[in-house]
């Protein structure tokens, strides 16, 4: 069993994700091996909120070049978490 802080790596803050917050959806980068149930529990434990839905996707690493050496960045998992209406995550609050 992974600890909640191991599951949630960091929130993604981009133009798109800030727009999605209007729909009470929050986007996280999560542990690539974490499943939806783990993610749901982690969010509920850390932020003390109720999660309605978790959708995940695997993001392939990008091809990077450094001179003549070629490699990939790590693959990672992205999770879209929908909260119960009225609840919010304190991502921007200090």
């Amino acid at each position: 069993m992974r600890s909640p802080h191991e599951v949630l790596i960091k929130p993604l803050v981009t133009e798109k994700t800030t727009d999605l917050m209007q729909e009470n959806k929050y986007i996280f980068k999560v542990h690539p091996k974490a499943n939806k149930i783990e993610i749901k529990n982690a969010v509920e434990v850390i932020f003390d909120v109720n999660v309605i839905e978790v959708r995940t996707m695997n993001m392939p690493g990008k091809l990077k070049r450094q001179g003549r050496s070629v490699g990939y960045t790590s693959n990672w998992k992205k999770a879209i978490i929908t909260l119960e209406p009225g609840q919010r995550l304190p991502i921007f609050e200090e």
Partner: protein
Amino acid sequence: MKVTVAEVSKNRVELTIEVPEEKFEESLEKAYRIVVKKINVPGFRKGKAPRIVVENMYGREIFMEEALQDAIPKAYEQALEEVKDKYTAVSSPEYEMVQIDKKKPFVFKATFDTKPEVKLGQYKGLEVEKIATEVKDEDIDAEIEKMRQRYAKLIVIEDEEACEGDFLTIDFVGKIAGEPFEGGTGENYSLELGSHTFIPGFEEQLLGVKVGETKDVVVTFPDEYQVEELAEKEAVFTVTVKEVKRKELAPLDDEFAKDVSEFATLQELRQDIANKLKKTAENKAEYELRKAVTKKAAENAEVEIPESMIENRLNQMINDVAFRLNQQGIPFEKYLELTNNKIDDLREMYRPEAEALVKADIVLEKIAQEEDIQATAEEVDEEIKKLAEKYQQETDKIHEVLEKQGQIPSIEFGIMLDKTVDFIIEQANLK
């Protein structure tokens, strides 16, 4: 908004201004909109990052400069409005931040010089000397003589000897010890006898020549001649006179009047000149009178003028000078170089004048207040009309421009001062 007033020293006031949090928040919001366009936040296109994201990343300080620029002048103006019965600012304020914390009102201090208290002295019944505006006959004669000179005709003289004031057309060949030298020859040169354009002695020796005559003129170059090799040398110029012309003044009669003016008779011309001279004299007398009474009134009053007011006036004057020089095509720096003055010397030179002007303005303003002299709307319109004529623009247009630039109050101020001077003159004892 809360304003507390403290007098720091004479004519200097410190305002502590408290801007409510919500008000300051507006300024911050404005600042955010400006700043966000310039900064990069990963995950967002330029200018698209929400304020909270920017704040988390760079801190609130990033908005401060812009926010203060927005908030301070507004608050300062409002504060001035509140204390305007007691104080009028005459210098730009110095600011000091007291509190710019989050979730708290924004507090800052503004310190500035105030318009000094004026203790008026006597300004009614001032004794001033009247300046004569009569036009003397000699002045008119002199004026007419000038016209005659200007309209004189050049008559070719055939047989007479040339005398002082004549115009000669000459060819000349100059030699030093039998050798021609550079610049020593000329053809068809027009020379006025007695104009001293040539080496001393040259013109004098040509007195009495006639057309067609050839004469050797012997002169010695002066010690300090521009061309060094020639100085103190003796030269012989062979001069051939090709033409002698003489200025002929027209006889003073109606014919002359007709030629030089639109008047039919000499009498009328004289009258016209007399009128014009009188007008100039009157204008000048009026100007002198205004200057004199203003000076007297100012001298009688007691004011402690803040340094900054004099400084401002000085700056204005120096700018004026620089501007005028520039218009004449002389850059200000160059002028300073040429006259070997430093800008500080110049300031020192203009200082007394600046001080007097500032004092006069303050005193006149106070008198206007005392006597309830104000510029009326019609007078302002009148003034604008005059301006419009001067710049050949439509009156409405000028009005609009002035209003946009906020110049109307200064026009009003000018009219008010003028009227005040009028008032003082009215009350004055003219001798």
